[in-house]
Each structure stands twice: as structure tokens, then as C-alpha cells.
């Protein structure tokens, strides 16, 4: 009977393609929006993931995220270094600044000060320049997306910029994912950053820590908190703190959630209506099958087969379109680093299959209640 069910389904071309389109569109809408949401949220964690060497981030006790924190006095660095289990600890600065381009245009930028001697805090991959170039006077490196925004016509470095009224020399391009709050990131040595960014005497935003080999970073973080009174977060925990902070303090989850909900509603509406129409159009045939000797269980299997087929084909098409969208846009500055998480597509698959099966079961109720004798009337 599954074969007959599929022939019934695929033979009605208009409704068949309508159902496939409905599911594919719904999959695309849900998958694409969920992917954009997740990737945007991951950008909130980008400052943390960009520093792969550090296990622990130490900050002011009131800090909530990489961009919502208070600076620390410089002696906190020594206090952290004195905690048992700390392999090394380096200062890290994150501040805002204004840059004037050669055309006289002003841009807001993030200035990241990395350790003077080890350059810990500078992402590993450079698209232009070498790491030691950052030891030059007034040297800065710019993330690739920010570089393209400031210098859209060239990939060459060596330009001079005015950063907070001080000369800055561009010596490299850094391959790192854009951050949630700023499109342009300047990396420079910590001592340079202090000079670039005027402020109070306390300007060390974070202390980056490596736990000694064999020690649990979370345990070391707890030890730092106990001994210094500062807040210390294991790297992944702090990444989640950043994501959670953005999710709490913006309407992004609600906006994307609304669109995902619309995707579900569109899917349910199109599939539900079309499926109901399909069943209604075939009610006499289903009635005849029941009279001939197909049980309600058999009818249910037929409709489930049809549902699963629609869900599988529609989902395959929709997820291919989603992948195509992400692949096609991830090269651009706005979507740089965006990827299609497997978990999202698994989640969308579950959602789509449940949605289609439920609408199928809803649509088939009339057939299950149908008296076979109706076909004689």
C-alpha cells in the first residue's frame, strides 16, 4: 500500500509540488533564520574565541561581557599571577576609539591591546603582514572585514591612520570573525593601546590566564576568584556569558524567534491546507479502499508514507537552499565566518517531520471516520 500511497500523491502534480514547495520554503525560512541567529550570537563570543591561548578570562566582578566591563588596576595582574595553578597571566585591553581615514571619514573602532612581549591576544591567522610587525612603533593590525571597510580599494598595508588623534601605522590584516558590536577591530600591543586610548589610570580590561597543564581551568578560575575577589571565567563559560548577555540585552532572539515561528506557521498552513485538500479530493478513493478491505491502520500507513515522503523531499530541497544561501553569503563582510550548524539542520528536520506528520494525521481524520458504505451513496 505504501507504493499506492506514493502514486496517489505524486500523480496529483499540482498538490504534490505545492506540498514540496511549502515544506522547502518552511525549511529554508526556519533553517536560514536559525542559522543567522546562531551565527550572530556566536559573534558575541568572537572576542573570546579569537584568543585561543587563554584558558581563563579574569575581569572586574561586575563585568557581564567582553564589552560590558570595568577596567582593572594594573596590580591585579600580579595578584592573578600569584594564584596557584596559573601557568601565565597577561594583560588584555579592549576599548573603543575613533579613527579618521585618509579621506577624512570617521569610524568607530574597537582597540584590542595584546601582550607586549608574547602578543597573546592576537588571532593566529594573518592575511597580510607578520606577527613581529606589531613590534614596530605605532603599529596596528586590522581585521579583514574592517580593513575592507576602511580601504575598499586595496589589500596592501602600510597606510597611516589617525587613531584618537595619534598616528597609527597599518602593518597587517588579521583573519578573525567580526565581533557583534563593531565592524572594525584594531589589534596593537598593550603599551601602544594605552597610548592610543586615553582614559583613567585603570585601563587593563582583562587578565588572560593559562592554567597549568593537567589542571581543570574551571578549578583554577574558582581559585582566582577566591584569592583575588575578581571574576574569573573559563573560556567557554565566558563565551556563553557573552552570548547570553547579547541575548538578554537585545531583541534579537525575539525577532528571529518570530520569523522562525512564521516559518512554522507558513509550513503548517500550506502543508495542512494542501494535504487536507488532497485527502478531500481523494476521499472517494480512500472510501473505496476501505470498502475493498483496507483497514484504518492501512489508511494511516498510507498517509504517513505520504507525509514522510513530502517531509523528506521538501526538507532535502529546503536544506539545500539554506546551505546554498549560507555558502553564497558567507564570503561577504556581513556574513563572514557564518556556517550552517549541523545541530540546526537536525533540529529543523525534527520540526519539519513532526509538522508534516501532525498535519497529515489531522488531514486523515475524515478518512478514518468515513463509513465505507458512503461510497455506495
Amino acid at each position, binding site marked *: *500500500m505504501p*507504493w*499506492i500511497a506514493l*502514486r*496517489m500523491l*505524486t*500523480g*496529483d502534480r499540482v498538490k504534490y509540488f505545492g506540498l514540496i514547495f511549502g515544506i522547502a520554503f518552511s525549511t529554508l525560512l526556519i533553517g536560514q533564520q536559525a542559522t543567522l541567529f546562531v551565527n550572530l550570537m556566536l559573534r558575541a563570543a568572537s572576542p573570546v574565541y579569537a584568543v585561543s591561548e587563554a584558558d581563563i578570562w579574569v575581569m572586574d566582578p561586575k563585568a557581564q561581557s567582553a564589552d560590558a566591563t570595568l577596567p582593572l588596576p594594573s596590580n591585579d595582574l600580579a595578584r592573578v599571577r600569584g594564584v596557584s595553578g596559573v601557568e601565565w597571566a597577561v594583560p588584555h585591553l579592549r576599548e573603543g576609539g575613533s579613527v579618521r581615514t585618509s579621506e577624512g571619514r570617521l569610524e568607530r573602532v574597537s582597540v584590542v591591546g595584546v601582550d607586549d612581549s608574547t602578543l597573546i591576544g592576537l588571532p593566529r591567522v594573518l592575511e597580510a603582514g607578520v606577527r613581529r610587525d606589531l613590534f614596530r612603533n605605532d603599529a596596528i593590525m586590522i581585521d579583514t572585514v574592517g580593513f575592507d571597510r576602511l580601504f575598499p580599494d586595496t589589500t596592501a598595508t602600510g597606510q597611516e591612520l589617525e587613531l584618537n588623534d595619534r598616528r597609527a601605522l597599518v602593518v597587517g590584516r588579521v583573519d578573525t570573525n567580526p565581533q557583534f558590536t563593531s565592524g572594525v577591530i584594531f589589534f596593537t600591543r598593550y603599551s601602544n593601546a594605552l597610548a592610543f586610548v586615553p582614559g583613567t589610570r585603570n585601563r587593563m580590561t582583562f587578565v588572560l590566564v593559562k592554567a597549568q597543564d593537567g589542571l581543570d581551568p574551571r578549578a583554577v578560575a574558582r581559585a582566582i576568584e577566591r584569592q583575588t575577589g575578581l571574576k574569573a571565567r573559563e573560556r567557554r563559560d565566558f563565551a556563553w556569558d557573552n552570548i547570553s548577555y547579547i541575548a538578554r540585552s537585545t531583541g534579537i532572539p525575539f525577532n528571529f524567534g518570530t520569523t522562525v515561528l512564521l516559518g512554522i506557521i507558513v509550513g503548517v498552513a500550506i502543508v495542512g491546507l494542501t494535504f487536507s485538500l488532497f485527502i478531500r479530493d481523494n476521499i*472517494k*478513493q480512500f*472510501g*473505496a*479502499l*476501505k*470498502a*475493498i*478491505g*483496507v*483497514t484504518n*491502520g*492501512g489508511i494511516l500507513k498510507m498517509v504517513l508514507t505520504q507525509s514522510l515522503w513530502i517531509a523528506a523531499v521538501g526538507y532535502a530541497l529546503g536544506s539545500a537552499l539554506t546551505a546554498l544561501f549560507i555558502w553564497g553569503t558567507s564570503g561577504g563582510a556581513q556574513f563572514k565566518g557564518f556556517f550552517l550548524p549541523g545541530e540546526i539542520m537536525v533540529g529543523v528536520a525534527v520540526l519539519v517531520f513532526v509538522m508534516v506528520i501532525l498535519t497529515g494525521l489531522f488531514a486523515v481524520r475524515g478518512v478514518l471516520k468515513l*463509513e*465505507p*458504505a458512503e*461510497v*455506495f*451513496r
Partner: protein
Amino acid sequence: MSGAGTPPAPGIRRQTETTQPAIRVEGIRKSFGSGDTRVEVLRGISADIDAGKLTYLVGESGSGKTTLISIIAGILFPDEGRVSLFGTDIYDLAGNDLVRYRLKNIGFIFQQYNLLPTLTAAQNAAVPLIAAGMKRAEAVERGAAVLERLGLGQQVNRLPRQLSGGQQQRVAIARALVHEPRLVVCDEPTAALDAASGRRVMELLKDVALGADRAVLIVTHDNRIFSLADRIIGMEDGRITHDGATAPDDAHSHEAQP
């Protein structure tokens, strides 16, 4: 044959053979609706129908013949009474057992054919076999063989919309016969056919569906085919009012709809 609990109507024959009839209905009552809207459609029908005979059920619209054939075919439960097909009391069968009994023992021919529009003629004919679990290729082959017998050998791969009304009816007959059921029930099988096609279909049905242990029961208004019947049962107002080899006198005035 007679209404139960009442003396036989004039001219109505009661089956007295000791051999088991193909169909035995006893005291069938059926009503629809409730309260003020309750309508009693069958008022205590009893009848025996033998195998090997083409039996017609005739009567005005609303006389109860479609309800009776539905009950005999096991697709509508009576309020009262018993139906025995070839010795099996079908309403004693539980749930799906009755469905399976129909699948094995009863062939259906519907007025509107109710063919699956996306299946070919041979595939349509094979539906009862596929539903019974036979492998598709074998079932379709057997469906095609029955169509060949019915003179549709050249049309086995055509879809219903590519066939004439008479050809579609023959596909429906093939579907009703492919699993060699013991009882074939037909609802107005010639209503949508012209006189010649209707007669050919009935001759075909008589030729291929009847046998020593097989019965055919037909609901019809079509007086053009009355002469082919072995037995005609007339119904009126939920009761049997005629039973004979010929139609009741007034039945000849009812023409099949074109």
C-alpha cells in the same frame, strides 16, 4: 424471500433448499438519525440468495436497496439481524477480521468506478491483491491478465482518464474479480453507460463472476438489463415487495440515467 415476521408478500418465494445459501439475511433492521429525524430504512428484511445466480435488487430511490447491499457487503452494521455469507456470520467477526473478510471474499463495483486516477488500468485492477500483501509485480501481472479476459488487453497501461466510461467500468470489474471473491456486489454498474455498453458489461459480469460457489448481487434502476437477471428482488419502503425471475410490473418504467 420475505420481510421477517410478516407473511410472504404475494409472489414472493421463500428459499426452502436444505443446501446453504450464498447469502442469508435474517431480520435486518436499520434506521438513520435519532428522535424526530429518525428514519427506518430497513424494516426486518430476511432473504436467502443462492450462488450461481445473477440477482438484482431493484426499487425506487429511498426504498432501502443501497442500505441492504451495504449491510450484505459488510460495510454497514445493521441495527438488528444477522448476515451470513457462505456460512460465516460476518457481523460476528471482530473489527479488522471483518475488513479482512471483505478483502478476501467480496468484490465491489461502484457506480462512479472510484478508480485511482494515478494508477494504470492494470495497477487499479491489482489493488485488492496489493492490499492483501501480494508483491506488486505479481499483482499487476494478475490484474493485467483479468483485463485481458475482459477485452482490455491493449489498455492495461492506460490511466483511467485515457479510457472510455465502458472501459473504466471494465477496469472496475477487473478490480472486483482479480482476487476471485465469492460475492460481487455492484451499485448501478450500468448507470453511466449507454444501452449497448451496459448490456455488454452485464453479460461480461455474468460470464466471469458467476460460478457454483459464487454470487453476484446488483443494485440497479436500469430496466434495459433486467432481462439478464436470474432473479429480481423488488424493494419498497424498507421491505421486500417482489421476488421473481422477472421485474415487478412498475419497474419497467424506471430508466437508467444517461
